């Protein structure tokens, strides 16, 4: 729990920085480990259910570890009507998981992202920071093979 102690110290143990602390945990670990919720609650004297409520409220925080490759599918309206829904369905079928989950081998996580403004090239997916535009359901298998 050393990393938590240094995060707590960074904000002088002040409970009104709970969200910032959780953001640091998310950044450092890639997710919010369950123990960290109990630890923060105890050290800051904030009720556990309060920390839990905040940690699950914001989309930034994930209570599940993220896999090696994070696939983000744009859920904006433009991408959606240009075929984004079929892209999500195809990804769910190929990976055998639902949005928000990771494959059991921790290779891929699937999530939705907000509109990034590149609507003209929708439907769009982003994998490890690399953007793929005009994605058709049939392209996906190839993209996934290329990555891993």
């Amino acid at each position, binding site marked *: 729990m050393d990393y938590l102690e240094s995060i707590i110290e960074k904000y002088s143990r002040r409970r009104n920085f709970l969200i910032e602390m959780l953001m640091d945990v998310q950044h450092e670990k890639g997710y919010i480990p369950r123990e960290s919720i109990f630890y923060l609650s105890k050290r800051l004297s904030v*009720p*556990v*259910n*309060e920390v*839990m*409520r905040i940690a*699950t*409220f914001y989309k930034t925080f994930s209570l599940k570890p993220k896999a090696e490759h994070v696939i983000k599918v744009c859920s904006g309206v433009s991408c959606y009507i240009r075929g984004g829904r079929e892209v999500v369905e195809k990804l769910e079928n190929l990976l055998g998981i639902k949005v928000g989950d990771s494959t059991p081998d921790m290779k891929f996580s699937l999530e939705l992202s907000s509109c990034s403004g590149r609507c003209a090239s929708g439907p769009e997916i982003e994998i490890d920071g690399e953007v793929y535009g005009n994605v058709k359901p049939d392209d996906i298998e190839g993209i996934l093979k290329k990555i891993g």
Partner: protein
Amino acid sequence: MSDVVNITIDGKECKAEKGMTILQVALREGIDIPTLCYHKDLEPYGGCRLCTVEIESRGRKNYVVSCLYPVEEGLVVKTRSPEVEKIRRIIVELLLARAPGSPELIKLKEEYGAKEEKFGKEPIFCILCGLCVRYCSEVKKKYAISFVQSGVKREISFIPEIALKECDKCKECFPLCPTSYAQALYLLTQALSGGPST
């Protein structure tokens, strides 16, 4: 500065202390206002909106939730009016879509002539009144149950690490729940964590 204010509820003149809410005065005067999320030992929450009343203050008409609205001098309150009834009827209809079959909601449905099928069923059974969460935190100070997620996905969730240790000997939130969902969710939590802890 006097700490006593005069207000009128349904034509009845009442004296109230500053800081009281309309609902508290009405309860004291024996005037019936329906509520789902109110509990005398808990902080007012304003979650169910069922206690909506019509007020007239400085010549303006407005609709407010009586469990949160503090009394003020000269306030005129109507706990029943066609508009108030309509607001409550729609609230009951919306809640019934989430929690069909809840005895408390069915009673309200009959009282306000709500139609159960108006919004189509989407049974989640929790109406997010927060009674269980707030009772556990404010009265019992055990924090065994929490609100999680946001927006349409918002729901209650027992925290197994605490609930399995504390809930068996308490269970005081079960009868507070208007839909019995708290109890059902607790049993699910137990089952998912490998049965009752001994």
